[in-house]
């Protein structure tokens, strides 16, 4: 399962508020640093398992799959993230 951003959505730095945002037609989602990091890894090449492994390596943590999946599923429910083959 390879998650990627829907074509209508764009990641953008919001300098004024010091955060990343996901912009889409008539809306936006403010991201915390972790959310921004997850989306930056959704490059259309990495699978969900790769993304989780990368984050777990980066933070020396384990068991992140559930949080990452919940975050991406939330955006998928809004049509902003799409799961590819």
């Amino acid at each position, binding site marked *: 399962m390879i998650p990627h951003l829907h074509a*209508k959505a*764009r990641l*953008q730095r*919001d300098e*004024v508020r010091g955060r990343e*945002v996901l*912009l889409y*037609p*008539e809306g936006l989602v403010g991201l915390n640093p972790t959310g921004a990091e997850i989306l930056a890894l959704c490059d259309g090449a990495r699978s969900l398992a790769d993304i989780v492994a990368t984050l777990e390596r980066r933070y020396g943590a384990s068991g992140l799959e559930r949080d990452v999946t919940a975050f991406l599923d939330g955006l998928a429910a809004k*049509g902003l993230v799409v799961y590819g083959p």
Partner: protein
Amino acid sequence: MDPRPLWLLAELTYKCPLQCPYCSNPLDFAGPRFRRELATDEWCRVFREAKALGVLQLGLSGGEPTLRPDLEELVRTAHGLGLYTSLITSAYRLTRERLAGLKAAGLDHVQISIQGADAELSDEIAGTASYRDKIAAYHYTRELGFPLTVNVVLHRRNLHQVEALIRLAESLGAERIELANTQFYGWALHNRNALMPTKGQLAAAWQVVERERARLGTKLEIVWVLPDYHEQFPKPCMGGWARAYMTVTPAGEVWPCHAAGRITTLTFENVRDHPLDWIWEHSEAFNRFRGDAWMPEPCRSCPRKAQDFGGCRCQAFLVAGDADATDPVCSLSPHRHLIDAAVAQVERAARGERQPEEWTYRAAPASRALATKG
């Protein structure tokens, strides 16, 4: 400084080849107040100032924004700033080449209006033969890879077509369809008796929306803008006065929403005289209804005031004659009877007890005549 704006609606021109009787533009759009349009470099400065102020979403609207020959340059500037840029157009005579040029300039999203589900009704409501251009432009938009919003303003004459309109948007591969029940400002208020739907029409259309939402899921987002005259509580207009939105008119006046210019008891500043951040932070008009200290009863002690912000200031001014009043749409407002009377007259017309009224098309000669009349 808090809050900061997220949205800027740039009304690039009030010229428009369409003549929709529900237009939200000012009745006096053809008058002297809006005559001297901002130049390219002035708009680019506005976009830079807006971005620095916190704006992330930019709507390029009008009138008809594609009438501006510098649209590509404006889009390029906005894109360079990182603004998510939407074109809000009638698509009249909009070619594939023009859209491709706008795509290359960095345009993010296209919203194209339609007035009805078939050429006959759509062209009649628009007052200009435009349906064919719209259908062609919907296809170009999809071919070029833009996300597409189909926008329909709903009223008594087209509410029966809601299902056909959703099916049309679905067949086009649109991302969203905005079913925007007419909000009564500008030309829509002038034509209120001709546009007001019946309760029965609204109930039937809402049933269709619920059914189609369940069928379509995330495949097509169906936005239903509430018909506020038929609601019990007011809309949280613009998320509160001067909290997240600003509109810049073709001649550079800055308003907290696209209807606010009609509030004659306020003075609005111009981007030609002040930087945008000063207008947002310090102008009298923007500060006038921030927070809740201005609120009268029944809003002041109402638990809903943090939810609906007292409703719409423009509606209070236009219907109750007092911009400080509770939105007359609220069932607790002492002016609610004015809303009920407007709703009741259409029910009488539907029962054949009175003649249905004709509308006035939005056009420059009518605008000048109305401006003279005051």
